C-alpha cells in the first residue's frame, strides 16, 4: 500500500492517514510505503502518527518505509532523529521493490546457505 502525504501534515492529516491505513492493518504482514515527496511541513503529531503506524505494522510482522522524501521532510526527520528509525528510499518504486526482494532473498539465502562443516 502506498500512501502519499500532503504538503502540510499535522494532526488532522495524521488521522486521515491512520484511517486510510486501517484495511492494511487488518492484513497479515502489512507493507506500507509513505510517499513524502510533497511534504513541506510536518509537525510532531504527524511524526507521532508515523511512529504509531510503524509500531502497529511491526506487531503484524510488516514494515513501513518512507520514500521520495522532500528536503524539508528530510530536515525534520533528521532533526527529530527519526531518520535513524525508518528505512528511507529515494523513490516509491524503490521502496516497493525492496519489499518484494528482501524477504524472498532472506528466505532463499537461509535455505540455500551452506551448513558449516563439522570437523
Amino acid at each position: 500500500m502506498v500512501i502519499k502525504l500532503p504538503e502540510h501534515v499535522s494532526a488532522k492529516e495524521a488521522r486521515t492517514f491512520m484511517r486510510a491505513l486501517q484495511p492494511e492493518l487488518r492484513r497479515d504482514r502489512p507493507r506500507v510505503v509513505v510517499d513524502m515527496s510533497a511534504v513541506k511541513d510536518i509537525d510532531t503529531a504527524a511524526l507521532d502518527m508515523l511512529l504509531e503506524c510503524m509500531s502497529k505494522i511491526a506487531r503484524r510482522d510488516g514494515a513501513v518505509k518512507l520514500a521520495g522524501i522532500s528536503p524539508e521532510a528530510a530536515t525534520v526527520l533528521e532533526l527529530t532523529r527519526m531518520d535513524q528509525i525508518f528505512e528511507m528510499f529515494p523513490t516509491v518504486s524503490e521502496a516497493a521493490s525492496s519489499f518484494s526482494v528482501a524477504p524472498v532473498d532472506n528466505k532463499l539465502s537461509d535455505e540455500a546457505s551452506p551448513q558449516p562443516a563439522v570437523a
Partner: protein
Amino acid sequence: MNIGVIVTIAGSRHSETDDGRGAPRKRIDNNANAKATSQLLMGSPVGSCDVLGQSIIDRVVARLRGFGAQRISIISEGPLPGCTASSASGSLYRTGSTPGFWPAWDSVVSEYLNQGVETLLLVRLGPYVELDLRDLLRFHRESASPLTQVYNRHTALDLVVVDAAPLREGTGSFRTRLSALIPQRQRYSFTGYTNLLAEPADFRRLVQDAFSGQCGMRPVGREVRSGIWYGERARVDRSATILAPAFIGAETCIEASCTISGATAVERHCEVDCGTTVDDCCVLPGTYLGMGLNVQHALVKGSKLFHLNRDIEVEISDSRLIGTTSPSRQLSRRARSVLGPSGTFGLNLVTRSSQLASLLTTRRFGRGD
C-alpha cells in the same frame, strides 16, 4: 580625525526610486543578483545578526571607534530588529523605512558637511571587512583622488572614502554628486580578512573563522575552559557536554544531557532543551530548541532552520520542535537560576517559613521515635 562615517545595513535592494519600504527577501538567495544586493539572513539584515555575543554592526562600530572615528551614523535599508537600535548608542541612528533610504542618507551627509567633516567613509554591511582605516585614509590622501573604493582580490567591496569638498561644491542631491565622482575613483587593494556574507554558509564560516582566530572577532564572554566561552548568566546543566570550540551566549540555557559540539555558537537568550545535540550550528538569539533533537549543519533562528548541507530553509510550525523562547519560558528559567540547579521550590530557597516547617517536621519525627 575629522571623518564622518555612514554605515548602511543592507537589507533589501534599493534603487533610484526606492522609498525604503521594499519588502525584505526571504533569505540570502542563491540567485546571483540577490547575493549582491539582498543580504538578509533568515529574514533579518545579516549586519544585525549576532556573532559570538555581539552583532556584526556593533563590532564594526567598535572597530571604527578604535581607529578614532567619532561621527558614525547607521542607516538601514530596511526595518531592523530592536537589538541593533541599542548598538548605535552615541551614533546618529536612522532607519531606511522612514523617510526612505536615500533621503535619510542625503540628510546625514548634509549634517556632516555642516559640521565641517573633511572626509566621508561609506560602509555597507554587506560584506564584513577587517579594514585598517588608517592605512586606507593614508592611501586616499596620497592618491589625491576625491574618491577611493576598496577592492579585495575578486571584487569591489562596499567601502568608499570620499572627500567632502567636491560634495559641498556640486549641485543636485548628494547621491548625484557622489555618483559624479565615481569615474575619478582610485582602487585600494585590501588583502586582509573579508567575508562577503552573501549566503548563509558565509555567515557560518565567519563564526568558524572567529573561533579559529582567522579573523579579529573574539567571543564576548569569559573563557571557562580552553575554547569554550560563556556569556553573562549563561546556564549550562552539569550533565551537558560542551566540546570546544563553543560559545554559549548571555542568559542562554543548556539543559540536561545536551551535547554542543562542532564549533557551535548558541547566541543570547536561547534555550536548548534536555537531550538535544547541536553540532556545527549557529543558533541565533532568542531561539528555543526542543527536547531530544539532533540539530546539525544548520543556522537556526526562531522557527526557521537553514540546513547548510541541503541549502534549504525550513520553517517549522511546531513550536515543540523549534521556535522562539517565550517570555514565560525565560521567566521560569530565570526562576530556576535564582533557586539553584535543581530548580525545586522550597529545597534551595531558604526562608523563615521553610525553616519553621523543617523544624516542625523534625519534631514530628522526633515524637514518633
